[in-house]
């Protein structure tokens, strides 16, 4: 039961981070928030007994995608106009 409430908390956190990622003007913060969403999603997948998907989400969503976006931000501009 406690675990279920914890998962609910994580899901709400994901929605909050998604809204933050869209609304913020700092693109680096938006990218990091998106990466954090992936990390939380992988925990939720693990709870839902899908370890394969959790690994993919953690490695690709939180690792590689975040890095590629950070490179893109570095090569362009950090703040949205």
């Amino acid at each position, binding site marked *: 039961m406690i675990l279920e409430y914890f998962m609910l908390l994580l899901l709400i956190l994901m929605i909050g981070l998604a809204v933050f990622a869209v609304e913020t003007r700092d693109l680096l913060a938006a990218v990091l928030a998106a990466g954090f969403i992936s990390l939380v999603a992988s925990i939720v997948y693990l709870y839902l007994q899908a370890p*394969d998907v959790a690994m993919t989400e953690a490695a690709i969503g939180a690792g590689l995608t975040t*890095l*590629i976006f950070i490179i893109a931000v570095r090569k362009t501009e950090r703040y949205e106009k």
Partner: protein
Amino acid sequence: MRKWVAIVFLAFLGFFMVKIVATFPFGEENWGVAKHYVDRGIEENRGSNLVTSIVVNYRGFDTLGEVTVLFLAATALAFLLSTCRCQKKYNRIEGSLILKTAADTLFPLLILFGAYIFIHGHLTPGGGFQGGTVIASAVMLMLLSRLSFHPNHRALSVTEGLAGMAFVLIGLAGLIWGGSFLANNILPLGQWNRLFSAGVIPLIYIAVGLKVGSELSGLITDMIATTKEEK
């Protein structure tokens, strides 16, 4: 005005989504071929990770397509990066002592862990794609921390090509000796839950792991290291 158009469009989309989802029976058995996979998958493939059996054997052709899509995307990106003249001034800097030491310690461990994931793809969660990504993230860590680290691009593309070819050749061997493309009856299936089991599934996943790992490593190297360092 545009806002209202968007809202009306979204309302339409939502309406039809709800309509479609309402037709799904919830809480009832609605299985087609999936029931066969779950009931007989382990018996037919002797891999203790059923997800791998489905991805590599039953849906092996889809996985081949997936690998091809990844290959095309990486090729297109490399092409775009090589023709782009819009590179801004951007200096890579050497990582700090903490980052360098951590990267040096983690690099062999990450490579080993990635290899472990795809070699044990038929036994434990994960497989070629996950293992390959872990290897690519190890390369990424080294690229971020050291300016002198340059993966051998030629070796990466040769590995990638050979691994992709191995996948297709295993499939063709199944077509010749097993009766269908990617058939899993050309090698002894072995015993359940052993490293040497599940026929060709581990071989295919090792090929996929090497391919994805070298491909993503090459891609990241292209992205990080293409910009010439300013003197």
